[in-house]
């Protein structure tokens, strides 16, 4: 029997194409959502909503090679809607403090130490650092460094000029470095304080 004797179901074909084009990016999108929500459950809700919206708009996607940035853009809209609905505001460390920490870093001779510190950070520490910097900067850095998008794609996803992407990535990395160094400084101070209390007669 020839293949042409089977009528093609257009709906099934569309669904199969959606599965093939969009769903391979699910793990990366889930990670992106987890970094900007309070729980895995919230992140899963956001990704699920993004998948449904992507499905409903799938016929709008002419060039399937661009499915990944298109899917991220939908997810960012969903996450933004969720934040607006919940009224949740990001708790930030003051930007000037982070910039000071970065300036101290590049003004001194600790660059080798910094590379060592950063290479040993666990995911939890990386996420804490990213959460301590403004969302626009964190998103640009993550889309480039973690998700591997080019600047031109990030400009499309975020909807800003490419010059803005450049400055957000540059500034975002500086703030992230500041956040990492500030947390390291705070941990060292806490450690010294604990040592002092121990030396003065142990815990009370």
């Amino acid at each position: 029997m020839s293949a042409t004797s089977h009528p093609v179901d257009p709906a099934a074909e569309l669904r199969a194409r959606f599965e093939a084009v969009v769903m391979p990016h699910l793990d990366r999108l889930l990670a992106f959502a987890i970094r900007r929500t309070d729980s895995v459950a919230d992140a899963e809700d956001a990704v699920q909503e993004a998948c449904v919206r992507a499905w409903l708009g799938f016929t709008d996607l002419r060039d399937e090679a661009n499915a990944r940035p298109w899917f991220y853009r939908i997810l960012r809209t969903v996450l933004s809607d969720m934040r607006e609905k919940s009224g949740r505001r990001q708790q930030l460390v003051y930007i000037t403090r982070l910039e000071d920490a970065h300036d101290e870093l590049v003004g001194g001779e600790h660059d080798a130490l910094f590379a060592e510190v950063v290479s040993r950070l666990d995911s939890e520490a990386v996420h804490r650092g990213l959460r301590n910097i403004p969302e626009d900067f964190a998103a640009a850095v993550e889309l480039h460094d973690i998700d591997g998008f080019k600047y031109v794609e990030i400009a499309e996803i975020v909807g800003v000029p490419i010059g803005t992407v450049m400055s957000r990535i540059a500034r975002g990395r500086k703030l992230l470095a500041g956040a990492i160094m500030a947390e390291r400084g705070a941990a060292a101070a806490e450690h010294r304080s604990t040592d002092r209390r121990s030396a003065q007669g142990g815990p009370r």
Partner: protein
Amino acid sequence: MSDDRSTMANRAASPEEAARESRHEVLRELLGAYADRELPPETVAQIDAHLVGCAECRRGLEVHHALRARLAVEPPAAASPAFRARIAAAIDAAPAPAPRVATDVRVSSNARMLWLAASGWIIAMVLSIALAMTSGTTSVFAPTSRTLSTPVHDVPLLGAVVDDYARVSRGDLPGRARDLDAVRAAVSFPVEPLRAQNLRLIAAWTTDVHGEPAAVLAYRLDDRLLVQYLVAEDVFFQHPAIRSAIADHHLLRAADGDRTVVAWPDSSTGTVLVGNVPTESLQTIWRSESKR
């Protein structure tokens, strides 16, 4: 060539040193894009040459490299089979997508336009180096301005700012100067108060300007109230009248009745400064800022 920028900054700047410092200020903002290989070859060559003599930029570059390398190995999450099944069920329950006129993300077709804009931005940055080098001044831009050719309310951002200024100046100011840190934490762009002779910060708060978040700083200039609205650069550059004025003259001037307005961009923000004062007073403040 000296490796010590702080020593250089502390010395009385000769024209050559001032030009070198200006070049440093511009190029260090491009280090992220340099690390990411997102710059055109001629800009890369300029940065290569600068890095040879600038230890601070070499350290700054190392920070970019270190963070890039660490973030690149950040693992993706693993969507569980149950979660995948949940998504499949949600899609099954949704209607099939209807055929529509395409409005897809055309990265490739838009890429040329985006890169044209980016090239312009980089060229502007590099040109500013050349200007600083030839003029030998510490100011990258010459202080000129252009009066807005249309009524203020034809530009939504400026119209909203002028209306908000009118409302604010009629009543109690919504914040205090000590709220500055809270304002900084509430917005995603840098907020630095203006500094000029006889200008004192008296209040800070946040607001929405034409639906976009803005940081608002109120100042006393002698016995007049000036209000500065800071917005993200993409909001600032949205209207062509602003883009055109800034591209040509770096400072936009406008007037609405007794109220005068000047506007200018910073590295990642835009400022609109409003007051019931002569435009020259506002321009003097901007000149002080551009020299900082």
